[in-house]
């Protein structure tokens, strides 16, 4: 066999080896992603301990400070590390708008008051990551808040309800797969 053919054979073997490696990582990653996602216990969003703090000026009833925190955890039962974990939360405020449907007719409205993405790094395989999502006053969309004096029907019970859409996104299988899970319309809090 010519020397050039021997060299070619070696390169082919190397390429085949790379292909097999990439395929194995992909398959094992897919398999363990299914293992993680198929067990709901691996994802915990602790809405019971979610805190929505509102500081209102007693005389003007203007919102002076607002923050939101939500604990959650993810257990990585797969074969690879969960990388670049991100949580995006969109918080919506549900309230009854005075005269929203015309004079004397109140109308239920939902306005977006928070949209924030927070990075939480990596979760090594076999471990559980416990995190707290925190949205401070600057993260909130204050222009979307209804006027507490003129807009909100405080006779409704509860007057204010907070709903959230969560999007957890992460990389898996040595970055070969990007996974995103979105949970919509979860009630996190109410006031009063």
């Amino acid at each position, binding site marked *: 066999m*010519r020397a*050039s*053919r021997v060299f*070619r054979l070696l*390169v*082919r073997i*190397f*390429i085949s080896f*790379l*292909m097999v490696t*990439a395929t194995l990582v*992909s398959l094992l990653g897919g398999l363990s*992603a299914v293992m993680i*996602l198929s067990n709901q216990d691996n994802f915990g969003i602790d809405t019971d301990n979610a805190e929505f703090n509102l500081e209102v000026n007693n005389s003007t009833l203007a919102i002076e400070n607002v923050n939101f925190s939500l604990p959650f955890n993810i257990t990585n039962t797969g074969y690879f590390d969960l990388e670049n974990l991100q949580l995006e939360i969109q918080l919506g405020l549900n309230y009854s708008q005075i005269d929203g449907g015309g004079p004397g007719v109140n109308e239920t409205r939902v306005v977006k008051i928070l949209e924030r993405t927070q990075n939480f790094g990596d979760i090594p395989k076999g471990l559980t990551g416990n995190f707290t999502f925190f949205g401070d006053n600057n993260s909130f969309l204050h222009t979307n808040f209804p006027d507490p004096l003129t807009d909100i029907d405080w006779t409704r019970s509860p007057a204010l309800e907070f709903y959230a*859409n*969560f999007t957890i996104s992460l*990389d898996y*299988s040595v*970055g*070969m*797969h*990007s*996974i*995103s*899970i*979105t*949970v*919509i319309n979860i009630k996190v809090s109410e006031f009063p």
Partner: protein
Amino acid sequence: MGAVKNMVKGFIFTGIYVLFTVVIPLVFFTLIFSIEGLPLEWEQQDKNNITFWIVAFGLLVSGLAFFKYSSPKQSIRKAVFALVQVIVNCLYIWSYRFSGAAEITFVISDFGFFSLDVSQMLLIYMGIYFLTIILRVYDVIDFTINREKIRENRMK
């Protein structure tokens, strides 16, 4: 008899390529779209897009496969068409991505949705595939430089 044998080989491999690049993906996507209640967020336009490009590039790959596999062993034309086939194969693989097949979204009713993006995986495969292209270029050069010796061996 050499020409007949080569052409039979060409037809066999073309059949295999048509099966794996056109028929199987078409059947797979048709089945996926026909199953009712499957929580996949794909529309009819996506399905048309995916199936069009699979068939289009699959046909090109299969035609090139015929030329390649019906050519004599270690011939320059075989090497040239093998190189072109590998390049068209790249277009075939990438058409899965730009047809939307690399980003799959599953809808979970009353809960939300789950999406899986394998673009990075395709990137790694494309990187490995580039090495195959380099190897094919090497073949063209090798078969051109050593053509007299190769022909001599083939015609013995």
